[in-house]
């Protein structure tokens, strides 16, 4: 049981940490190519990442909910 809750805790932490590290890791996305519809990578990646973040956060939210079942 304790192993299970430990895994759950690690997954919860990763669901918050992965998107955050990407957001703060500016050099990861600070480049101009590849472009998308004429938009430099810098702009379209961060906009796309909003959708990815929503996925991570919904995962976190669902996993938190399970605890109360």
């Amino acid at each position: 049981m304790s192993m299970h809750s430990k895994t759950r805790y690690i997954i919860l932490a990763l669901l918050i940490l992965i998107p955050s590290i990407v957001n703060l890791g500016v050099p990861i996305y600070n480049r101009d190519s590849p472009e998308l519809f004429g938009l430099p990578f810098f702009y379209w990646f961060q906009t796309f990442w909003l959708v990815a973040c929503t996925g991570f956060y919904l995962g976190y939210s669902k996993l938190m909910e399970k605890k109360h079942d």
Partner: protein
Amino acid sequence: MISSDMLIVFVSLFIVFIGLGFYGKYWRRGDLNHVHEWSLAGRKLGTTLVFFLIGADLYTAYSFVAIPSGVFAKGSLYFFAIPYVMLTFAVALVAMPRLWTLAKEKGYITASDFVKDRFGSRTLAIMIAVTGIVAELPYIALQIVGMQAVLTVMLAGYANAQLVQEISLLVAFVILAAFTYTSGLRGATLTAIFKDILVWITVIAIIVIVPITIGGFGNAFKAASSSYVTLPEDLVPAYATLILGSALALYLYPHAISGVLSAQSAQKLRTSTALLPLYGIGLAVLALMGVLVYAVPGAMNFLSGFPASSRGILVVPSLILYSLPSWFSGVALLGVFVGGLVPAAIMAMAQANLLTRNIIKEIKPNLSDKSEIRITKAASTVFKFVALGFVFSVPATYAISLQLLGGILIAQILPAVFCGLYVKSLRKVPLIIGLFVGIISGILMVEFTNSFGQLTSSLLKTAFGPIYIAVIALGINLVISFGGSLIQKKMDSKKETAQ
């Protein structure tokens, strides 16, 4: 010069907006003589409504005016607003459901209520309330600057434009004050949904129409300079720390906390917070307008008629005017206009709660519930007009600079509020000293950076490159709060062993 069909659309939609504001009183009826009913809509808002209400906090004139204005003037640096909102929801997911649970259990309405109960310190609670009220004022002023920008673009070319603009703003604020007085947060929530519909229609129209008329995004980036394409290498530390500092600060603002506490359950709050990054897509489109405008000759020509310092805030309204059909501009411009009005209402209500519950009630503890709600309603009206008076008396660019200072101040309540939720070992005295030193050092660094003149920058030049001052001041504050608590704990245990 604007056309009459645009004016008709603008005015009719504004009338619908007023109607919704007053109707709020009857929506999900509650006894509005109770503070939690008036200021937290009875803690009954579900996932969708909390999404819209907190979205309204995010989609303020800050996104319509300050961010596109920054992108227009300085380029890619101001795109930090996008990763900042993503990170802020990570912070919110961890901290806010816990605050919600405690608030529901113990009847807190403000962050200051929590701090007073958690640390048993009136001084700390009052300091937090004052910081909240002060930091919120320039934020409200910024909303009014956004509304002013809409009116400036609409009235350009008319005689007496300045006078008509000030009267229009005054009328808008009297109406706003009247419906927040009667409907409380319910009125704000209903108008927030209306506002969001207008804003989303506008954002979608712009992202479809503008790139087609200018022949693709590429042309806009060609028309702008290279610092617009990617972030210049030396600005990377500034970008990262602006993301971090702003993300930590947003949910400390009193109006954001009111939004959170109005949720029906911690889980509903979590789900709506998780979905909120989607809102940022609209913010990204608005920020891009700061670049797109370079490829729209009509708008650039119009902007060149204004002094360079005030062109930025006019970017979004003038792009709307010069790229959308005229009746549709009426829809879009009203969206931007009420986009400032709704958050201003929510912010003034949050300030009023702090003033009444955490300052006046501390001095006069036997205040009845009835007087409490009466003073709160009156104070929320006063705060709105203080902000309006502020905007009439200082230049618009200055109002935006003060908003930078507001962010630095509000970040300093983080150790007591967020860390206080999770860390057991924190003590009140180090927190008080940390908050005080954080605020003073923050103000001094801002003044030093701007050579004690007009505030234009919130970045301190360091050996690691330019760093957002809020992060440095918060660092100092955290060291004092945690270090001091540790020392105090050791001294206490020594005393015990000596006895």
